[in-house]
């Protein structure tokens, strides 16, 4: 997929390689590169996902990174139906509507 000049895109930067990371970290963290993700408007004429591009961020910073996504939307949600909490309302209301000091 191609992004075009002016498109709102997400890029990723390798900020610190694993060997540049702090020494006191847990092993599972230390072995991983430290990555940044930033959004902005594409400055290149066009760029394919996975290729390196340059963007202008909301504050006007010009930065370079690997193109991850184009016209990025938020799709986080209110989650799935959670059956495990069904009992809370009826059980609490039974106490609430019942006698004192049950």
């Amino acid at each position, binding site marked *: 997929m191609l992004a075009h000049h002016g498109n709102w895109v997400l890029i990723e930067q390798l*900020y*610190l390689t694993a060997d*540049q*990371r*702090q020494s006191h*970290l*847990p092993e*599972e*963290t230390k072995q*991983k*590169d*430290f*990555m*940044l*993700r*930033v*959004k*902005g408007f594409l400055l290149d004429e066009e760029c394919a996902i996975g290729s390196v591009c340059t963007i202008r*961020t*909301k*504050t*006007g*910073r010009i930065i370079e990174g690997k193109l991850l996504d184009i016209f990025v939307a*938020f799709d*986080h*949600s*209110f*989650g*799935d*139906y*959670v059956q*495990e*909490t069904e*009992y*809370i*309302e009826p*059980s*609490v*209301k039974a*106490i*609430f509507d*019942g*006698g*004192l*000091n*049950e």
Partner: protein
Amino acid sequence: MNKAQSILSRKNEILKKAIDVDFLKYRLSDIAFDYTRLMEDTGYPIDLAQKVQRSLGVGSTPMLELTNINTLIRKISRPGLGARLFLKDEACNLSGSFKARRAAISVYHAKKLGYPGVIAATSGNYGAAVAAMCAKLNLKCIIVQESFDSQGIYQPEILEKARAIEAYGAEVVQCSVGPELFVVFLDLLDQTGYFNASLYSPYGIAGLQTLGIECVEDIRRLTGKDPDAIVVTHAGGGNLTATAQGAKKTGCCCPIIAASVDLHGLHMASDTDFNRKSFTTGHTGFGFPFAMNPDRSDVTYSAARALRYMDSYYTVKQGEVFYMTEVLAKLEGMERGPAGNTSLAVAFSLAQSMREDQIVVVQETEYTGAGKHMNAQLSFAKKRGIKVITGDPIQEVAGENIILPSHPGLIQARPVDLDQLRYSYLRNQLKMHPDTLFSQDDILYLSQECNTSITWTETAIRQLKGDGHETK
């Protein structure tokens, strides 16, 4: 020297340009600094802080008596027991949380000083608060967040905060897991020349004192009495510190009670543990280390010094806070949190052993939304193999299961041994200053830091140092 080392070597120079506080002016010794004077010098006494906040849509939030929850408390308490809970609905602030009080003063100050923008390092509600205030005051804004693990999976609550920050027109810099976020933060301050809207600056804390004042004044107005306790969700320490300072300014001397979610066993810098927790703030992963070492922050001397002000400290489990989040919605018609409901869960438990005529303030709520909502968090946890079950929450193990209490009487505020926190605080000081001979002034300072007596402090230091230490 790699990039991180090079930036860190310039830390003091970068931070000095990014905030107008000359912290070294307050230095008294290797150990001590003049905290009272640091706070007095902010230039934002309460009336000015309130005026700035009013102009920015912040403060004067409703104080609501939780009448139905209070009925529930009395039904499960022994006769004559069951204090009344009042809840400060801080979700009504612009941006949806008490953090707007902190952000209002910091961002207003940045504007006054002529900075072109502000930067804050936060994965919490503070990011949205700073972004909203920057929108209102027409400043540029960058928020640096710890957002995703090495698989590229985002914590949904942090993603929601990124959405809110973007909605207010700010830039979000999202980081993978690890404390190197601080290097990115310094790097951005250095590149941009923006103001450091630190959570821990005296401006933020001065701004938040208005909440402590309102907590007392609201209760006086509604009941004609002072509260008997104020329960505060505790993480980095600013919320507790400023609320206590504000309450004291009203002449109220009720206990200030800290509350955190128990995330014991999960490492805060672990890439694999990152997405195994259902709370991104208000938990012991911040609450303990920031109480024991408040200066582990992004300013030379943190203005958030919780150990000075906490009269007691309790933890609750994730399942207990989720349960109270559901009870708040179903009995009071208030869909909030969940993280901000940590203090509610603690207060619900403590109220059962307090008298009916006593009053407990639950000091905040926060907005809920996609990602933050308890169903979003419970679904996310289940997808990662964490079991959601009903039972006795005392058996909950963070990262393995979430235990929703089978009966509200099983919600237990579990006390934290404050003396252990004080020992840990002093141990950190000894580690940082191994060759220092503590003067009497240092001992006085440390006893203030630990909210304890000079004798206790001297004895504790002697015990920690063994025989090899003397005071001069």
